[in-house]
Every structure is written in C-alpha cells, then in structure tokens.
C-alpha cells in the first residue's frame, strides 16, 4: 500500500499539498506519536488492571488435564466414513459461502470505497462546495462504520429473521461487514494513489467519475483484487464461525461436536479447517506476492487465479443453490419492516452503568488481545519470513512457524476460549487469550509478509559496513517494520472489538454477552441500544487508530 505513496518534493508543491503540509506541521508528527503512545500505554495498564478484578488465582494448572484430553484427541481424529462424508460436504459448503461472500464484499467494497474516498468528495473542490462535500464525506464514512461494527454472527441473525433459512444469509452476513471493511481499505488505496493525473483530468473538465475511472482505478484496482484474495481467506474463517448459528458448513459440524465435547470429531472438523485455511493462505499469498513484486494482470499466476476464482464462483452458486428471488419477495420487506418496528425506538431506559461497564470490559479484553497478538506476531514474523538463501534449515524453520500460525488462526475463537477456560479463572483473561492467539495467527502471517517485502538495501549497507546481526535488526529492520506492525495491529483492534461477541463462554461479561442475552430474549429494542454502543465504540477505535497511524507514518 505504501509503495503507491507519491514522493512529494517541497519545491514543486502545488497549492493543495501546500495546505496539507501546513496542516501537518501544526498537527501530528513526533509530538503526536508521543501522545498516542501515552494513550496506548494508559489503555494497556488500565486493561491489565482490570484483570485484578478477577477473584482468585488467574491460572489453574490442575485444569490442564482437560486441555491434554483435547490435544490428545488430535492424534486420533474421527475417521468414521459417514462422518468424513459429512465433513467433506460441509467443507465444500464453507468454501462456497466464503467465495460468494467475498464476491459480494468486493463489489460492495468497490462502490463503497469510491463513495467514501477523500478524492471522490474533496479533491478539486473549494470554498462552500468543499464544505458541503466534507459533510457528505463524513456522512458516508460514518455510515460505513455501522456494518463494520457488527459481528458477522449478529448480521447472520438479523438476515435470518428477514430472509429465512437460505444460503443467502451466510453470503450476506459475510459480504456486508466484509464489504464495509473492503470499502475502507479501497478508499485508502484510492486516496493513496498518485493524485496528480486525477487532478489534471479534473482540471481539464473531466467529470469526476470518469476522471476516477481513468486515473485512480488503473492504479488501485489490482490492489483491490489482491485484497479480495486476502478477504477470501478471512471469509473461510468467518464462514466457519457463522456455521455456529446454523448456517451450515464446517462451523455447524464443529458446533455440533463441540456441544457434546466429542473431541475426536472436533479434531476431524478442525483438520478440515486447517487444510482449507492453509490452502487459501498459500493461494492468496501467491497472488499477493506476485502483485507486490510488480507483476501485471497478465502474469500466469494472477491470470490463472482470476479464472479459478471465476470457476469457483460459478460452482459455489450452483452448490448452494442461491435463490436471489427472496430478496424481492414481499414477505422479506414485511419482515424487515417488522424488525424495524420491533427495534425502534431503541430502549433508552437502560442501566447506563451496566452498559458502561460492559463497554469497558469489551475494550479491556480487546486491548489485551491485540497487544498479545502484536507482540507474539512480531516475534513469530521473523522466523516465518522466508528471506535470504533458501537453505534446508531455513526452510524447515519457515514451514514450521507458518504451520503454527495456521493452526492458531484455523481454530475458531470459541474453541480457544473453551481451552483457556479450562486452565484460567473465568473472566477477561481467557477471553483476551482466546482472541489474542487467534489474532496472533492472522497478524503473524501478515507481519511475516511485510518482513519479506522489506527493502533490503539498508540492511545490506549495514552488513557491508560490518555491522553485527543484532545491529542490523536494530538499525535497519525494526525501524522499517515497526510502523507496519503497529498499523496491522490497529486494523485488527477494531475487528477484535467486534469479535468479543463470540467468546461469551469465558464469562467475562462485556457488550457481546449483553447483546447475546438480549437477542436470545428477542428484546430487539434493547439490542439496538447495545448495538449503538458497539458502533460508537468502533467509531472511537477507528478514530484512535487513524490518529496513531498518521503519527507513525
């Protein structure tokens, strides 16, 4: 993403950049970075402090036998023929949901990304027109927070009540929140693309849409596609979790076997998830690595992947028998209206204190999780990155570390939560650990990629000057990767906030548990209030992370 940033020379600053530069001097910079680190530290200390509320010892070694029971079953997964057939077909369903969900999210992300980009609203506008456009821009960006803030599972329940038992529920439950995330990323890609050609086209009287189409999209679209492949990876995991609400697929089988703690069956499903996860990872990193090294759409791997994606998309449509007619059915609209009337107006007569405590718990859990994930990811990213000469030892190290990362992210957070609950006191800690190790699996892999894509010249220069390995990492590697690691962590922080919903088992409380409780008692009006708090929280996290990223950039 960063390589599309234009190098801006002071001597040739046109007016708009002059103003930006003037603003930047007054705003962030070193002081900003220091301020944000302070905020981060306070948040972390407060979150750690929240652990002190847990009564009794935090860790209980005697519960470890239950963990070993679980781990022991890994060597003897259920291989019952009928069950394997069930799992096989569930795996295909999961892939199909993921593929279709990704398609929806890329389409939504494309449109939403343009409509929420700064270049679309502000570039080339002055005075009153600019002020009006700013209002529009903020409104669209604000609207996009809503779908992002709500977890796929909650979306699933909402769509279920409107659309009924149709595969479309899973497709939309993945597609809509992912679409909003993709929109955010795509708008940033557009905003970071070189703007001069766009500006030149506007200056020549080209309508905005056409100017964008001709000058920014050619730069950003391949990044969007490769991001789509990354989203597909996430969608596989998400489809698995969605199964928990009965959307079918591997998650459903996992939920069933987990209910009776049939670990051997659980492992069969987990192996299926691990294989799927590994396969999509390999595929999507192959595509993205080609992109990062500047390959064009004509590259055989990229072209082959696009064709494969297309075939997979058609197959998925056929496999899940997607029936879109339900979208226009009168019943659907009636039910949608009914939900709205049930939920509106939201309950205002809520125990404010309870909501605030729940929000704080959610924040604390997410902060601990993300700190754990970033720290662990930063440690594992280096052994997981294949850099340097491909010796056998290195290759073994890379494959082994990556395998660990894959397992960490292939096990859904509820499974992790149960395992951590076996050995920890109920409360924040097992929840944070569960989300932390899961996110670590995701971040470690992204971080490894960014280590691989690192500019080698500064390191080589230091090595040539006779610097030790440690000195090279301190002076050349750490400064280069640290901002990216922080940026990844901040992106994921937002996701972690919303994922606290799925680790209710740890008994930590929080907004997720509250929401779950309200939804199971069909109290839509109260749910809406809780959701509003989640949305506000997400918006705050969003603003914070944007501020931090600006200051470390």
């Amino acid at each position, binding site marked *: 993403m960063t390589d599309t940033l234009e190098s801006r020379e002071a001597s040739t600053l046109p007016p708009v950049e002059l103003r930006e530069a003037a603003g930047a001097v007054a705003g962030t910079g070193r002081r900003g970075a220091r301020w944000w680190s302070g905020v981060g530290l306070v948040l972390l200390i407060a979150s750690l402090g929240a652990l002190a509320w847990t009564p009794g010892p935090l860790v209980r070694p005697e519960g470890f036998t239950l963990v070993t029971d679980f781990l022991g079953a890994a060597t003897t997964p259920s291989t019952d023929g009928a069950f394997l057939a069930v799992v096989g077909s569930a795996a295909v369903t999961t892939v199909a949901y993921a593929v279709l969900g990704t398609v929806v999210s890329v389409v939504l992300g494309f449109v939403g990304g343009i409509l929420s980009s700064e270049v679309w609203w502000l570039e080339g506008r002055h005075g009153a027109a600019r002020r009006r456009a700013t209002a529009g821009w903020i409104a669209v960006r604000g609207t996009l927070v809503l779908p992002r803030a709500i977890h796929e599972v909650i979306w699933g329940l909402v769509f279920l009540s409107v659309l009924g038992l149709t595969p479309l529920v899973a497709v939309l439950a993945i597609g809509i929140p992912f679409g909003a995330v993709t929109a955010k990323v795509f708008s940033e890609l557009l905003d970071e693309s070189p703007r001069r050609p766009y500006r030149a086209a506007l200056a020549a009287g080209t309508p905005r849409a056409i100017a964008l189409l001709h000058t920014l999209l050619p730069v950003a679209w391949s990044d969007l596609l490769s991001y789509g492949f990354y989203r597909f990876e996430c969608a596989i995991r998400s489809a698995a979790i969605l199964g928990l*609400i009965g959307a079918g697929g591997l998650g459903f089988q996992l939920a*069933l076997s987990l*209910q009776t703690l049939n670990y051997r069956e659980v492992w069969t499903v987990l192996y299926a998830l691990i294989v799927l996860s590994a396969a999509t990872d390999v595929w999507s990193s192959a595509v993205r690595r080609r992109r990062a090294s500047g390959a064009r759409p004509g590259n055989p791997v990229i072209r082959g992947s696009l064709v494969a994606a*297309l075939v997979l*998309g058609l197959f998925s449509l056929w496999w899940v028998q997607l029936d*879109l007619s339900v979208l226009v059915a009168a019943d659907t609209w009636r039910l949608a209206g009914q939900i709205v009337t049930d939920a509106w107006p939201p309950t205002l007569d809520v125990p404010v204190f309870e909501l605030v405590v729940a929000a704080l718990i959610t924040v604390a859990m997410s902060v601990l999780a993300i700190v754990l994930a970033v720290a662990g990811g930063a440690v594992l990213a280096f052994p997981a990155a294949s850099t340097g000469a491909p010796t056998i030892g290195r290759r073994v190290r890379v494959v082994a570390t990556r395998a660990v990362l894959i397992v960490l992210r292939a096990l859904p957070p509820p499974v992790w939560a149960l395992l951590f609950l076996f050995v920890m006191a109920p409360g924040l800690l097992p929840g944070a650990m569960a989300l932390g190790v899961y996110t670590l699996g995701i971040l470690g892999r992204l971080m490894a990629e960014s280590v691989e894509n690192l500019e080698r010249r500064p390191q080589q220069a230091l090595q040539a000057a006779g610097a030790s390995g440690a000195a090279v990492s301190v002076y050349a590697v750490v400064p280069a990767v640290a901002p990216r690691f922080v940026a990844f962590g901040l992106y994921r922080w937002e996701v972690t906030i919303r994922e606290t919903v799925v680790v209710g088992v*740890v008994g*930590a409380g929080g907004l997720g548990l509250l929401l779950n409780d309200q939804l199971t008692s*069909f109290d839509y009006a109260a749910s809406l209030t809780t959701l509003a708090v989640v949305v506000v929280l997400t918006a705050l996290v969003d603003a914070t992370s944007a501020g931090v990223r600006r200051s470390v950039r």
Partner: protein
Amino acid sequence: MRRVLAVIVLVLTAALTAACGGGAEPRELVISAIPDQDPQKLQRLYGALAERLTGTLGFPVRYVPLTDYAASVTAYRRGDLDMVFFGGLTGVQARQQVPGSVPLAQRDVDERFRSVFVATTASGIAPVADVAGLRSVGGRSLTFGSESSTSGRLMPQFFLDQAGVGPNAFRGPSGFSGSHDATIAVVTSGAYEVGALNSSVWDQRVAAGQVDTTKVREIFRTPTYHDYHWLARPDIDDELGAGATSRIRDALLGLRPSDPVDKNILDLFGAGSFIPTQPQNYDQVEQVGRSLGLVQ
C-alpha cells in the same frame, strides 16, 4: 480483458437465471429440533425421522438441522420451519412470536424434567436437601449452559432465585458454557465451582463413566418441570390440508419402541415415547422466563 468482460456477463446471467428459477415449491412440512442429548447424532441422522414421517403422513417432510436456539425461533417465526422440537423456554418464546402455535407432543421424560447442580469436590460444597439449601451456592463461581436453555439456565436460575441467590450473588459474572457437556467439563476443570445442567445428560454421562467423580459431584436435583416439546405453527392445516396438524400429532404419538425403526428415532431423541401435552404445561416456564426477562 474482453474475454473477462464476456465471462462476467455470463456469470450475471447465470445468477439471474438461478434467481428467477424458484418457481412453485412442493407443499412440504419443514421440521427441526434442538435436542439435549448427543445432538450431533440426530442432526446428522435426521433423514430417519423425516422418512418415517413422510411415510406415515403422505406429504413430504424435510428436516433442517440447526444448533442455535435463537436461530430456530427466528426461522420458526418467519415461517421457514413448520414444526420444531423446542425446549421449554424457546417453545414459550416461539409461541409468543407466533400466537396460536400448538404444542403437539412431548417426550415421556419431559413431563418430569429436572436440572442438577454439580460442584467441584475441591469447593467443599456439600449436597443440599432442598431448594432453600441452594443458599450455599451464593458467593461461589457458577456457570450455566446455553443462554436459552430451560434446563441449563432458566429453571436453575429460577430455583436459585427462590433460595434467595440473585443473578449478582456469585463470585464474578455467571458463565455460559454453551452446552450441558461443556458445563461438566468447565466445572471438572475447576474454572467454575458450580454448574447447572440437564439431569438426564448428567445421569447418562455418569453412567457411561465420562465424569471424573473425584473432581465433580451432584449437589442438588431440582423439582420437576415441563421441558422439551414439539410445537407446530397454526397455519399447517391451511398449507397441508385440514386435519394435517392432528395427523402429525398422531404420527408422533404413534412411534412405538417395539418397532426397530421407531426405536432408533426415539433413541436419537433420548425418549421412551412421545406423549400428549398441552399449553398449560409451560405456564410455569413462561412465568419464570418473564420474571427473568427472557420472555418479553
């Protein structure tokens, strides 16, 4: 590039054709169940029940596997499910969402359903004789099963309330393990000192030697209440012909343990047989649900 465009057009056409291909659906009875014991067996072998009912009733019966209580109530409310084997609480919730729904049948065990409280031996909590004795659970950490479970949450919470142990009287917030088996596991691990679950699951696991009785033991068995039952939408007769509802009821009640096919189905439900039931049986559950805010 042109080829890519052509393929995109193709995909869209295919999708739209698929979308419009819905057409007239055959009249069928769509059923689902969220059983309390070994749900995966029933959910994966659901063909048996659907086939058996189709054979008796003469119209197609389709079984939809689901695991989530809220999801099944939602689907029922929407009309995607015609008949569901609900728990006591979810049945009440569903009846409220779809007024006029008819409880058709229950299992023989559901008439005298009980929950058990279990505790770690390390906690030193002694077995108690009556509901009032549950006072000793106050101040301990406690986990329920699933949020919407009657036997794993609603009724235990009710009896705790009767003993004067309110929702905030535990050490830390109470947990929701997600299932009866998970409750046994997390209590065995010591994560929670006390757990509440379905008595028949407990009895079965203890009998099968799957519970480490040196670590966890039963401390109280609650009084009886009504739990699971088949609930049918009021519009089944309109959809499938007059008398369809009572024919379905008869089919359920007619499952004989002596018949090997029927026996297999009853076993999947953990039932000796299905017996009649009536709406009043769930008044207590409804009342409790209301007082706990789980029924609006």
